[in-house]
């Protein structure tokens, strides 16, 4: 039971545009925004009865955009179930792949979605084609990183999406020095192109003062809990402790044993979404309230970490904090800059791994261990904390699976931010018959800043602009269920 009331949408939804829909619910007392994800594929059910060593390949199909994140985190969970500590060499292989995954996803978002969104602020069209018309060289550089990344991925993992290489205790395939030498060359080209994007962003967005000006808008603010992995306090993407800070930056919890994640995260089921609404368990569930909302992803990672490894990444991190006025950064628009810090970090960490002799020597898989009933894997996917939690029977057949994805965790936060602007939107519709372009632009920018991946969220998806709801259906409904306006 609950005290929350939402109102019936009488208009049958015949056509659903894109991945998701924003429904604004109005009454005399309040206006609320609901970010709806529209379908459901049920991976937690289909995992039951499967051989657990095969789950990494099966569960990777949750998402075709970050399939490696799911493949890797599923592998971490089954390592535990099989009681196998992965070999040092296989851990390096997995970490390298994880860095490529984050780099790929971040570069895509930063260059093709984030840059146009922020640098073309105030213009009607804020997409890559407009940026192309204005800054062709920059867009060419961005697109070139796409093709180079695909070459790199193909070289290292063979099948770019839904490939398989993780098995309990290790990987099926390592790299030799020739392969890595080629990969390093490609990475160098990507790095050079990234510098161009970096300089453009700093010039247009940071030094121009645009970011500070935009950040003054309260709507982009989120005073929530932040959750991320840290390793000795450093930003960590593969293996670390779960650190939770409150909206004032105080460390509320730090859990080295990731299997206890459910001490921090609760899930609420709501009737208007196939994805759950995760929340900070100790705060209790409060719908549409920042008090139980958890933020994950690049900005949260920057907020929870004390340091970022890598010479250039560390400098960039320092500059970001200075500009934003210290941690925690509560303005979501800074997520674009946080992504940039991580892009630089990933490139530096990949080079570090490629230089290690352990990447080329030693066993690829550890086949010894005593199986246990339950295994949890936690990983930083590009969009934040990703959890796979499995149990199995004595013959290592899965009896349950629970998957919590970053976009699911961020669902409450997205609702909260959208609600902040929805009052104005309704006001505009009432007075002028339609919302202003600026208000719609703010809502789009909010959703883009979160970089939601809805395929992950309900293990599910309709993807739009690479996991990005560039356009979404927007509708406003009254308490009586009448559709007042439809975008």
């Amino acid at each position, binding site marked *: *039971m*609950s005290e*929350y009331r939402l109102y019936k*949408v009488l208009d049958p*939804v015949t*056509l*659903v*545009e894109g991945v998701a829909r924003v*429904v604004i619910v109005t009454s005399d007392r309040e206006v609320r925004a609901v970010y709806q994800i*529209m*379908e*459901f*594929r*049920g991976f*937690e*059910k*289909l995992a039951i*009865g499967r*051989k657990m*060593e*095969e789950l990494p390949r*099966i569960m990777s*199909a949750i998402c*075709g*955009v970050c399939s490696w994140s799911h493949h890797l985190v599923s592998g971490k969970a089954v390592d535990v179930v*099989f009681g196998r500590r992965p070999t040092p060499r296989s851990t390096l292989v997995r970490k390298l792949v994880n860095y490529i995954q984050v780099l790929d996803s971040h570069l895509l978002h930063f260059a093709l979605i984030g840059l146009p969104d922020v640098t073309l602020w105030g213009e009607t069209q804020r997409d890559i084609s407009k940026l192309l018309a204005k800054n062709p060289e920059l867009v060419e550089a961005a697109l070139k990183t*796409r*093709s180079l990344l695909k070459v790199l991925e193909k070289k290292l993992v*063979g*099948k*770019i*999406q*839904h*490939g*398989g*290489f993780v*098995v309990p205790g290790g990987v099926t*395939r390592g790299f030799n020095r020739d392969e890595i030498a080629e990969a390093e060359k490609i990475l160098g080209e990507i790095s050079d192109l990234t510098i161009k994007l970096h300089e453009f962003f700093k010039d247009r967005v940071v030094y121009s003062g645009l970011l500070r000006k935009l950040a003054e808008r309260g709507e982009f603010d989120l005073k929530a809990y932040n959750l991320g992995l840290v390793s000795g306090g450093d930003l960590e993407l593969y293996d670390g402790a779960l650190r939770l800070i409150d909206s004032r930056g105080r460390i509320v919890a730090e859990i080295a044993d990731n299997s206890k994640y459910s001490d921090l995260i*609760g899930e*609420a*089921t709501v*009737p*208007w*979404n*196939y994805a759950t609404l995760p*929340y900070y368990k100790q705060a209790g*569930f409060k*719908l549409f309230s920042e008090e139980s909302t958890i933020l994950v992803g690049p900005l949260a990672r920057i907020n929870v970490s004390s340091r970022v490894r890598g010479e250039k990444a560390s400098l960039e991190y320092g500059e970001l904090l200075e500009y934003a006025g210290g941690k925690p950064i509560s303005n979501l628009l800074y997520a674009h800059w946080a992504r940039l810090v991580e892009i630089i970090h990933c490139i530096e960490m990949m080079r570090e791994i490629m230089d290690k002799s352990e990447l080329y020597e030693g066993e690829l*898989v550890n086949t010894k261990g005593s199986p246990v009933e339950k295994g949890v894997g936690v990983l930083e996917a590009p969009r934040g904390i990703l959890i796979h939690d499995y149990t199995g029977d004595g013959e*290592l057949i899965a009896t349950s699976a629970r998957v919590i994805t970053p976009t699911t965790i961020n669902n409450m936060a997205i609702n909260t931010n959208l609600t902040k602007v929805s009052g104005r939107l309704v006001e505009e519709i009432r007075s002028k018959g339609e919302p202003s372009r600026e208000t719609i632009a703010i809502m789009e920018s909010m959703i883009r800043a979160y970089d939601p*991946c809805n*395929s992950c969220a309900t293990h*599910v*998806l*309709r*993807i739009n*602009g690479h996991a990005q709801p*560039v*356009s979404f259906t927007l509708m406003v*409904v009254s308490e009586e269920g009448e559709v007042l306006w439809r975008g």
Partner: protein
Amino acid sequence: MLKLAVIPGAICGGCDVALASVGEKLLDVLKYYEIVYWPIAIDRKLSDLEAVEEIDALIYMGGVSTREEYELARKLSSKSRVKVALGTCSVYGGIPGLNSLSSPLEVYKVNMGRSDHWIQGDSLGLPQLVPYMAYTDVVEPDILAPGCPPSGKVLDQLLEQLIEYAAKGKIDHKPILLGDPESLCNKCPRNPKTTKIKMPGIKRLHEVELDDKKCFLEQGILCMGPATRNICDHSCIKTNYPCTGCGGPLDWGGDSGVSMISSIGSVLLVDSEKSLLEPGLTREIDKLRDYIGTFYRYTLRKSMLYKLRELKKGGLK
């Protein structure tokens, strides 16, 4: 210009990304076609597509999981000249098709069951779930492009077909199943002597340190290669991972499981059949454990198993 629409159903996004990554070949197609709808690539509304009277080529990605998807797939297909099922979910149901033997409510209950908190209220028009289907359960496509996601090879073939259609105005021999009409074993880089393979018992993936040169079956590892159409040029096998069958059966209408069981029957413990006899062989086959997830991981929705079950329920004509 002909009109091309790309429609996402219940997808993971892999097919979208794969199609968007074909690069220059796509530009060749764009000499003949105008893209009238493709959410990942162009900013057009579904209402724009509704207004289009006829679609020349429609590419449908993913399965069908909601009533809205079902109706949309039917409605758009009915005004499309060439219909393409892109990706294994669209053609065979894919991995989400593993839920085909359960009702949507049974599937959803698994998620609800773990919740710490329940909110009641209205669904705000959330689309209604239907029993999961492949696109091929909704209409009969002209071109079937399997793969999870489809490989560069399948996508090249698809684009060639679309260009050919643009030139000739018709499709011969429907439906066309893309990929090469042979099993993966045929050109396997591990060069298995297919007539002499001996499977030394059944091992699970975690039980063996995989040899990266030797036929998986000869290592006791179940590789779906013999029962799977060559759509990929062995991309998984090349990373030392056995084929899991995402290309589907060799021919349209085939059954991956039946064909794989027959393959195993002819190679499993062929040396010791006489001493093991039936009970011994049965014990060995039992080690496979999850038959559905092994043989029908991607094709359960189109399998004989599914059809038999529906017949039993009286639900299949």
